[in-house]
C-alpha cells in the first residue's frame, strides 16, 4: 500500500516534464504570439493554431524570456525589428496596416461630436501605456494634432488595446484611442470618430518566425499562407486591415 503510494508519487514526478509538453492534438500545433488587435481575425483565418494575444511589448518580452512561440506578429515594427537584431526571430515582413480612431461607447456619454472635442469637453479618456503600440501611436496622434493636453484627461492607462475596448464597451470610460479594426470587431458597441490623415501614424504589422521554434518550416508556411493566400487577405480586409 505504502509502496504503491510511493511509486505513484515517483511516477507523477517523472511524468511532470511530459505533462508540461503535452499538446491536445497529436499533430504538432503552431503557437502564434500576436498583437491584441489581431484577436478576432487570426483565429478566423486559422482555427487550428494556439494563440496568445497581448500587447506586442509584452509578447516580445516573453519571447526574450524563452516563451514557446513559433510565430510573432507585432502591431509595431519596432518590436519585431528589435528581436531580429537580437537574432531571436527570422527576418520580419509586413503583412497589414491599420489606422487609429477615437472610439466612444455607443451611448456616447460625453456627447463628443469630433475628435477635437477632446480639447474642450470634460472627457474620461482611456489610452494604452506608453510601452504598448496603441499607446505609443496615440501619443503620436495627439502630438501631431496639437492635442497633447488631452493626456491630462486620461483616467486609465491600459496594458493592451483590448482592455481599452473593454472599458469603452462597458461605458465606464467616455473615449479611447483604438484601432479602426477594434471598433469593427466590437460589433456596434462602439462608435468611431476618424482621425485626420495628418494626425494618422503609420501603423504597420510585422510578422516573423521565432528562431527557437521547433517547427520553423511549418511556421514559415503559416506566414506564407497569411500573406499570400486570397482567403487570408480577404479576411484581413473584411476585419478592416489594409492589405497591399
Amino acid at each position, binding site marked *: 500500500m505504502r509502496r504503491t503510494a510511493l511509486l505513484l508519487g515517483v511516477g507523477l514526478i517523472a511524468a511532470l516534464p511530459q505533462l508540461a509538453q503535452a499538446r491536445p492534438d497529436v499533430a504538432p500545433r503552431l503557437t502564434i504570439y500576436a498583437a491584441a488587435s489581431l484577436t478576432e481575425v487570426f483565429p478566423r483565418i486559422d482555427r487550428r493554431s494556439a494563440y496568445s494575444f497581448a*500587447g506586442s511589448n509584452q509578447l516580445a518580452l516573453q519571447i526574450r524570456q524563452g516563451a514557446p512561440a513559433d510565430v510573432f506578429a507585432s502591431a509595431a515594427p519596432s518590436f519585431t525589428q528589435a528581436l531580429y537584431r537580437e537574432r531571436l526571430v527570422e527576418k520580419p515582413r509586413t503583412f497589414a496596416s491599420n489606422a487609429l480612431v477615437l472610439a466612444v461607447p455607443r451611448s456616447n*456619454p460625453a456627447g463628443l461630436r469630433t475628435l477635437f472635442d477632446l480639447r474642450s469637453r470634460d472627457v474620461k479618456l482611456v489610452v494604452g501605456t506608453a510601452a504598448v503600440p496603441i499607446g505609443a501611436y496615440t501619443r503620436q496622434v495627439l502630438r501631431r494634432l496639437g492635442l497633447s493636453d488631452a493626456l491630462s484627461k486620461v483616467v486609465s492607462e491600459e496594458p493592451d488595446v483590448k482592455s481599452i475596448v473593454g472599458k469603452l464597451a462597458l461605458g465606464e*470610460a467616455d473615449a479611447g484611442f483604438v484601432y479602426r479594426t477594434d471598433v469593427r470587431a466590437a460589433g456596434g458597441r462602439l462608435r468611431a470618430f476618424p482621425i485626420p490623415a495628418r494626425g494618422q501614424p503609420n501603423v504597420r504589422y510585422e510578422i516573423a518566425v521565432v528562431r527557437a521554434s521547433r517547427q520553423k518550416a511549418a511556421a514559415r508556411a503559416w506566414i506564407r499562407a497569411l500573406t499570400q493566400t486570397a482567403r487570408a487577405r480577404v479576411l484581413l480586409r473584411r476585419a478592416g486591415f489594409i492589405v497591399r
Partner: protein
Amino acid sequence: MRRAGRAAFTTVLVLAVCVAVAFLLLPVASIFWRVGLDGLVDGLRSDVARDAFRVTLKTNAISMALILLVGTPAAYFLATRRFPGRALVVTILELPLVVPPAVAGIGLLAAFGRLGLLGEELEALGITIGFTQVAVVFAITFVASPFYVRWAIAAFEAVDKTMLDASRTLGAGPAKTFWRVALPLAGGGLGAGAAVALARGLGEFGATIMFAGSLQGVTQTVSLAIYQEFDVNLDTALAISAVLVVGSGALLLAVKALPLWTGSRSTSPSLFARSASS
C-alpha cells in the same frame, strides 16, 4: 527491519519538507538575487514606484479602517448570537474568499459601474466611482474584508463566554462588555485577522485593474505598477516586488507574534487552551 522502515519514512518526510521549502523559497529569493542592492535603491527612487507606494498605502489605510469599523461589530454579532439564517449570512460574507479577483472586478463593475445596477442612481447623485481611488478602495475592501471578518468571528468565539456573563452580572451593559471585555480578549485574533486582510489588500490586482483601471499616482497600486513596469523597466518591477516581499513577510511575522503577545497578558482560560494546543 521496522526501524529501517521508520527511518525511510522519516527520510521521505524530510525530503518533502526540503522540496516544499526549496520550491516556495526559490522564486522569492530570486527576486533579491536579480535586483541587487543598487537596483533596489534605483528602482525605488523612480516616480512610478513612489507613486505606487503612496497610492497603495493610502487606499489600504482607508480600506482597513472601513473593514475594522464595520467588520468588528458584525463579527461580534455573528460570533455571539444564534439566529436562523446565520450560516447563510456567514457564507455570504466569506464568498469573496473563494471568488476569483477577476470575477470580483466584473461584479463591482456590474454593481457600481456607470452602466451597473446602481450606476444611474450614483450618476444622479453626482458620484463617480470608476477610475478613482474610491474604486481602488472598493476593490481592496471587497477582496480583503472576508479575511478579517472570518478571523474576527473565530476570535470572538474563542472568548470565554463566562467572562462576558461575569461582566454582565457585575453590572456592565452589553456595549461596555464589548469594549472592556470581549474586544481586549479577542485583540490578538483581531490583529492577526487585520494583518491577513492587509496582506491580501496590498497584493490586490485583478479587481483593481478591471474596476479602477491603472493610472500612475491615482489608481496605480504597487501590484499594477509591477505589472506595467515589468516590460518597461524590469529593475523597477523587481525593486517594488522586493519591498512587497519584505512588507508581507513582516505582516506574516506579526500574525504569528500577535496571539502569543496578548496570550501572555491575558487570563482567559480559552486562550491558554488554544496556545497549549497550537
